[in-house]
């Protein structure tokens, strides 16, 4: 078992945990954190495969993914603040109407 297999297994584990957080938790902020964990796992897998294959494209894609993740979390957190203002809670089951 080499380093690459270990890193790929870690990426798979982090991906599974992030997926479970997105599916099982009811806080909106936990769902956003789960999405961050998913993106982080995908980054880890991309970098490890690109390093193993002696390529540079994976690292460049990871650079773009990190930028998109920053934009996504800024938008998501401002939506979350709006959700808290309108419904008084950030639980997903309180936000049942689309039009406030």
């Amino acid at each position, binding site marked *: *078992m*080499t*380093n690459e*297999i*270990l*890193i*790929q*297994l*870690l990426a*798979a*584990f*982090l991906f*599974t*945990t992030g997926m*479970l*957080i997105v*599916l*099982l*938790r*009811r*806080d909106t*902020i*936990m769902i*956003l*954190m789960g999405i*961050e*964990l998913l993106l*982080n796992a995908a*980054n*880890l897998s991309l*970098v*490890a495969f690109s*390093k193993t*294959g002696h*390529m*540079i494209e994976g*690292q*460049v894609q*990871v*650079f*773009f993914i*990190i*930028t998109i*993740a*920053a*934009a*996504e*979390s*800024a*938008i998501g*957190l*401002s*939506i*979350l*603040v*709006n959700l*808290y203002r*309108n419904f008084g809670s*950030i*639980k997903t089951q309180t936000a049942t109407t689309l039009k406030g």
Partner: protein
Amino acid sequence: MSLPIIILCLISAILAVTMLFAKSPITSALCLLGVLIMTAGVYGLIGEHMIATIQLVVYAGAIMVLFIFSIMLLNLSNSENDFKQKPKIFIFGLAIGLSVFAFIANSILTHFQNHSSDRQLGIFTPQVVSDLGGNSKVLSHALFSQFYVSFEVISLALLVAVVGAVVLAKRKID
């Protein structure tokens, strides 16, 4: 297989599981911060110094500050445990997660056992990268020559996101 990578992977896996089961959002945010820092350590250990720095600065610096800031702004305290309300759904979800992990791990192991020899290798071997002036130089050169259109588009997307976040935060929905 080196010992520091094993230690980092173990700590990161434990922190991820703690993040799944933690009651308060601030514990989860700190666990996520730990996972991101450990991932940056793994990047540094396999020689990707540029990505490790970006991970530390952008992920662990900026994004986690946003998360912790909004947790403190909304004054989120301990929520009641989600898993105690519906234990059946929780056990079902854990089973699904385990099967997904088993599937991915199985395909990874099969890939590395059977198909690792017929992989097409690129030109950026560690020797070539160190001859060209190190990892950061190679990556930056690729970013500003081969991928410059994508780079500009990404900066535009970031601008749109900043404007959108300001508009969303200022608007009052009645």
